[in-house]
């Protein structure tokens, strides 16, 4: 078969216009690709460079070879899939075994540089150099005049270099520097914060220190109190004489066990998993959250399915007048974007001002979203509102396609209404909708939007040291632990490890389900 399609593709007369379109598209792809490769080269990102070259070569081979017909159709989607799904899942697996996060954000050499920069002190007895604050575009810079009257200019990104063309005023400060404009007193005051934190390196070497200023008129040389000994791989604090050497956690550690604040990321084996399951701060909430996640997902599927099926059966009576109206009105929540519905309900369920308490319950004070159990009930209730129309739709579809002869047979056998429902309708419905129930379970297992928007995971657990609450599910726990919204210290390693746990749970359940529905056998 494959040889036949190849022959056809090769011998068929190419339409000129189609070939031209292909050439133009490929030229565009190649141009963008080469641009990306060059950019990766400049940024010294070798991994990205390799991936881009590989994708580019693959694209050209696939679209200009005659033996790659199927790939011509699959490649675009495949490329995105490989980068943004397969790779990121794999990368999650890697990060799960590292201590990536606050304090361990970068490589070792970056950490060393950061430590040197952060621990700079004014060099004792260094001369006060007359200084001028400069501006070029958005960037601030300093011009300093040394003891011999020579002016040097630099900025945060550009180390000091001589500026022989600068004009020096009476007080020794530069008044004009080519390529820069001099800031006056008022402008300096306006950007005081930026000026006092500006650090202009003396040279490319971080150990050489920097020039800083407090008053925008005099600069001092700052140098790090730490020195890095490359041969011994140790940091030495020159003010105290303490020697720090690297430990297994990716930090510099002194003999007394104290560590320097900036570390680098290292692989830590199963430590993150041990934290999730064993560390008392996380283990207890983790187990609670795991149980609630299962309860939430299962109960959501069950409640929405039961209500949806019930309504589908109620409205499945052709004599019922106006059932089209009932149906249309009942599925309206399905058309409401989930995040809007959750936000809307969070207001409606508000304890003091919400419409549920104030109007429907006549001024009651029910803590719908702030009591641990009521909050869980509310989450389920809102999800029921959101989810039952979907179940209603699929049950209606399934009911209408049930074979009529089975019912006839049941009637002939004298089965009553309840018996027919229990032995025929229900099993057939379940068989027909099982794959969708499974995917509904998987969806709710990760229904981050609902939890985040409705309760934000609250009410919080009593132990305030972890940013977790009674209605948090695993995915929102991952989000909170990752610290990406800035409310908690970032811990990518632990967050990724938790993601892996979810992957495993969802994967196992899906695999079992697919086995059950024999979906794999349909493939051929």
């Amino acid at each position, binding site marked *: 078969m494959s040889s036949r399609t190849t022959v056809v593709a090769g011998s068929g007369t190419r339409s000129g216009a189609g070939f031209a379109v292909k050439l133009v598209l490929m030229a565009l792809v190649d141009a963008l690709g080469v641009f990306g490769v060059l950019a990766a080269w400049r940024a010294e990102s070798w991994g990205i460079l390799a991936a881009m070259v590989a994708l580019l070569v693959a694209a050209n081979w696939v679209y200009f070879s005659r033996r790659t017909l199927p790939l011509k159709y699959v490649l675009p989607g495949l490329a995105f899939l490989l980068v943004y799904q397969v790779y990121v899942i794999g990368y999650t697996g890697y990060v799960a075994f590292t201590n990536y996060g606050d304090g361990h954000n970068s490589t070792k050499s970056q950490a060393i540089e950061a430590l040197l920069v952060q621990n700079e002190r004014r060099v004792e007895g260094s001369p006060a150099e007359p200084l001028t604050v400069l501006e070029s575009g958005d960037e601030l810079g300093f011009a300093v005049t040394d003891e011999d009257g020579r002016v040097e200019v630099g900025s945060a990104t550009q180390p000091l270099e001589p500026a022989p063309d600068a004009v020096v005023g009476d007080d020794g400060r530069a008044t004009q520097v080519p390529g820069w404009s001099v800031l006056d007193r008022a402008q300096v005051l306006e950007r005081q914060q930026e000026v006092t934190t500006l650090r202009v390196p003396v040279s490319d070497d971080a150990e050489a220190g920097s020039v800083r200023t407090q008053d925008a008129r005099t600069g001092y040389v700052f140098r790090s109190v730490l020195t890095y000994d490359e041969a011994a791989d140790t940091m030495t604090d020159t003010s105290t004489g303490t020697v720090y050497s690297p430990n297994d956690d990716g930090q510099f550690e002194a003999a007394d066990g104290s560590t320097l604040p900036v570390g680098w990321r290292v692989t830590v084996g199963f430590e993150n998993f041990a934290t999730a399951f064993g560390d008392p701060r996380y283990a207890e909430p983790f187990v609670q959250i795991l149980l609630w996640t299962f309860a939430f997902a299962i109960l959501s599927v069950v409640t929405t399915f039961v209500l949806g099926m019930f309504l589908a059966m109620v*409205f499945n009576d052709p004599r019922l007048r106006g059932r089209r109206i009932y149906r249309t009105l009942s599925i309206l929540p399905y058309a409401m974007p989930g995040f809007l519905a959750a936000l809307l309900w*969070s207001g409606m369920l508000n304890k003091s001002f919400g419409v549920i308490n104030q109007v429907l319950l006549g001024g009651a004070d029910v803590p719908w979203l702030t009591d641990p159990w009521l909050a869980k009930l509310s989450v389920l209730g809102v999800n029921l509102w959101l989810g039952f129309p979907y179940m209603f739709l699929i049950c209606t579809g*399934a009911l209408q396609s049930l074979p009529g002869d089975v019912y006839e047979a049941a009637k002939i056998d004298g089965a009553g209404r309840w018996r027919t429902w229990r032995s025929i309708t229900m099993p057939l419905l379940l068989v027909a909708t099982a794959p969708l129930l499974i995917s509904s379970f998987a969806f709710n297992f990760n229904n981050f*939007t609902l939890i985040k928007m409705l309760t934000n995971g609250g009410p919080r657990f009593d132990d305030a040291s972890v940013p977790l609450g009674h209605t948090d599910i695993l995915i929102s726990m991952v989000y909170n632990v990752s610290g990406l919204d800035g409310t908690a210290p970032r811990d990518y390693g632990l967050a990724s490890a938790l993601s892996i746990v979810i992957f495993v749970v969802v*994967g196992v359940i899906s695999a079992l389900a697919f086995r059950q529905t024999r979906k794999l056998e349909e493939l051929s």
Partner: protein
Amino acid sequence: MTTSNQHSTTTTTTATAAGAPAQVLRHRMSFARWARELGWRHLVGVLAAAYAVFPLVYVLSASLSASGTLTGSNELFAEVSGANYVALGGTKFWTWMVNTLVIGIATAVGTVLMGAAAAYAFSRFRFTGRRLGLTSLLIIQMFPQMLAFVAIFLLLISLGQVVPALGLNSKLALICVYLGGALGVNTFLMYGFFNTVPRELDEAAKIDGATHAQTYWTIILRMVTPILAVVALLSFISTFGEFIIARVVLQSESNWTLAVGLYGWVSDLLEANWGLFAAGAVLSALPVLALFLFLQKYIVGGLTAGSVKG
């Protein structure tokens, strides 16, 4: 209300039932002695409709209330004013709306193009690795992309250092991330539908001298338009409401989508921003609602295609 309905329906029962399939008729006829049978169905129908519609009515009323506070919105339609809608003009709402539409439409179009192409290849060509490809897709689609949001964040940091347009805080980068999930989710839905298009059509076209590309663009794609509409719609709606990746990727307020922006309003100052939120919610729900009701037939068909296909 229910009683009157009940009377009117019982009188027309025979007329409506006559058009129904024979088995339904007989099935119902045997229970016809329950005169109240249809009455409780109406009661359920009214209750269900009220349950479904009440929050929507409430948000409409809140968006029209003049005070714009949560408390002030409790009396339904006590006052009708456009103040909240006018006030939206002073916020970033319309920027978010445009962002959301741009991201949603671009993702939907990309998803349909790439998914349909892949489904075509899997459905029409027999090649080594086809089975493996389908099985891999099946396995990959079990792992939702959103779970890897930390890794996506870290990947975009690295990409942003090379090409800023593909890095954090870029709408293009977000679209790319969404497109990464396109193949896994939709290929199977489309693959099944493509298989129902008779192969004789391709063969005939081939004999007439059409290339594979001409067959694909001019014949197959026309035959599968319904599934393309469904996939585009589902993709648009899911992108429209996606929060976690959008929140992580888009950082400056002017790049936010509606989901990120409206969450900000409600979580910050629930009481004060309620009218604004309600007006925003009505306006953001309208396009989806309209699209949904308009394409309801297709959606139901698409959803049940997966379940009842057999």
